[in-house]
């Protein structure tokens, strides 16, 4: 239909394959997300830790640089070894930043669509509820991957290239980076979408997300103190993922500090299933009022 013609005509051209359409949602979401300068600065800051890790690995294998900086190589290897604790700390720091990223981006994903009846528009197209959730989740998953397991794996590969014998002894670290970060970002994305869908209002969803994360840490500690137990930790996502990371990276922790890994996995999977159930209840074109 030509603009000057101003009459209606059907579309008779090619169509994109249905499997690729969920990726339209992240493309449009990023156009909005990256318009925020605050987010851009934060996103850049997220790469400081991996960059510092990169420098560290480089220094470990560059004697001339170490001698230039007047650092004895043995001292560096003794105080900052490239091993499980190096990657565990990196995962821990990036995991914290991942939550802040979800806190900034997550609440705006589903709540406005529910509030403005946008879901009816999405779902009246050949676009299912699953594709909608997948599309919205991929907005977070792609961003979170960029600051968690992708830089982690790049550092792991960088170290492996510089020291091939190291790779054979630390192959399990690569798996720990992938599984540990993967589980965390998946859970964070599901939690953010579920809270955003449940609350319907962006600022309140943001507050709810913060409360759920920070208050649960205090609540877990209080419960443990009052009841002299450890299972209070299972109410805090941060303690739960901490236990999972520690077990995956082989970091020894006492039973007082974190919950047992088995219980932590069960809590994480249970929490994720709860979020999925909430999403299945809320992501509908129209609510049925009983």
């Amino acid at each position, binding site marked *: 239909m030509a603009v000057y013609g101003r009459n209606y005509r059907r*579309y008779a051209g090619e169509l994109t394959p249905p499997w690729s359409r969920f990726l339209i949602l992240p493309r449009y979401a990023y156009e909005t997300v990256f318009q925020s300068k605050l987010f851009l600065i934060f996103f850049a800051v997220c790469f400081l830790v991996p960059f510092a890790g990169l420098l560290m690995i480089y220094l470990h294998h560059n004697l001339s640089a170490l001698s230039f900086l007047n650092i004895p190589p043995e001292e560096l290897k003794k105080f900052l070894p490239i091993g499980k604790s190096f990657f565990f700390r990196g995962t821990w720091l990036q995991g914290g930043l991942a939550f802040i990223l979800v806190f900034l981006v997550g609440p705006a994903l589903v709540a406005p669509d529910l509030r403005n009846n946008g879901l009816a528009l999405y779902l*009246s197209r050949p676009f299912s509820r699953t594709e909608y959730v997948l599309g919205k989740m991929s907005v977070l998953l792609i961003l979170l991957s960029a600051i968690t397991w992708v830089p982690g794996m790049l550092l792991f590969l960088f170290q492996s290239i510089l020291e091939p014998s190291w790779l054979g002894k630390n192959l399990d670290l690569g798996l720990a980076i992938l599984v540990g970060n993967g589980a965390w970002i998946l859970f964070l994305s599901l939690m953010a979408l579920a809270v955003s869908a449940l609350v319907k209002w962006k600022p309140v969803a943001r507050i709810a997300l913060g409360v759920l994360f920070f208050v649960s840490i205090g609540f877990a500690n209080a419960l443990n103190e009052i009841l002299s137990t450890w299972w209070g930790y299972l109410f805090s996502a941060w303690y739960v993922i901490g236990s999972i990371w520690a077990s995956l990276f082989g970091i020894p922790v006492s039973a007082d500090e974190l919950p047992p890994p088995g219980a932590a996995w069960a809590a994480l999977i249970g929490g994720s299933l709860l979020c999925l159930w909430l999403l299945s209840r809320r992501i509908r*074109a129209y609510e049925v009022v009983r």
Partner: protein
Amino acid sequence: MVNLATKTALEAPAPAAEASVPVVELQGLEVKLGGRPILQGLNATLTGRCIGLLGPNGAGKTTLLHTLLGFYPISGGSARVLGKDVKTETRAIRSFMGYMPENDAFIQGMSGVRFVRQMAELAGLPKAQAIERAHEVLFYVGLGEARYRPVDGYSLGMRQAAKLAQALAHGPRLVFLDEPTNGLDPVARERMLRLIRDITEAGNVRVILSSHLLRDVEECCDEVLVLKAGKVAVTCNLEAERRANRNFLELELRNEQGGSADPGFNQALEALGAEIASGARQRLKVVLPDGVKVRDLYRIAVERKVQIRRLDYKRDSLEDIFLKAMEG
């Protein structure tokens, strides 16, 4: 560059073949929401170019549209849209149709053109075509100059037009319009109705228009399904109805004292085979069967001592059909 486009919208049947397929076929359709029956045993075959869904508030018009879109599960019977089963081929149905919801619906923080473009892409249009069609369709609905403004800031009339634009952007074969003139001023309403007529007539698109405004439906539609309390009250081909040479009269009756006329008059007319609908102020709408003349009315009036104070020849308007259906 990899071309992701694999399928074409031309897979749609030719217009001639499509014209023979009923737009909507309902066979004992039942829908329950929250355990409550909302639609009960709907049976209808609708074939018109522009089909009006009429009924008072709560009759089930929007529920029917949502069921045809696959938003609500069918609890009994079946429904087909352009030959596709609603239960099993929901995705196929959604791929050839556009939907304009009744309530305010938009994606926050987007300009008009970005909003329509995204909706077109979600319907399967490649990016370049979606951009082109978004601009075109926004001009078409009269939002050309406002297309770069955020949808959140549009007036009610503009948001209605934007909703229509997103329903048309991907060039559907069938469009569901749910109360499209809600909240519009007379000028905007007239523009909206003109667009609906244009889409139907020039664009070779089927339209299902849900409204509680009889005039809107009468101005655009050639077929009507009237719902009442979740049931089909009447289906009517308006075109055929308009063409039919029926003896449609409007009478104003009184008894000899100027009071209410004897109800026996109505019964006597019905005995002759006339269709009757009582209106306000002692008015009676009568459709005389073939062979019955006006003089027969006067004869019965004399017999029943009823005065016919006024007699008008009247065509069977949608209002009459609707009122008759509501009374039934």
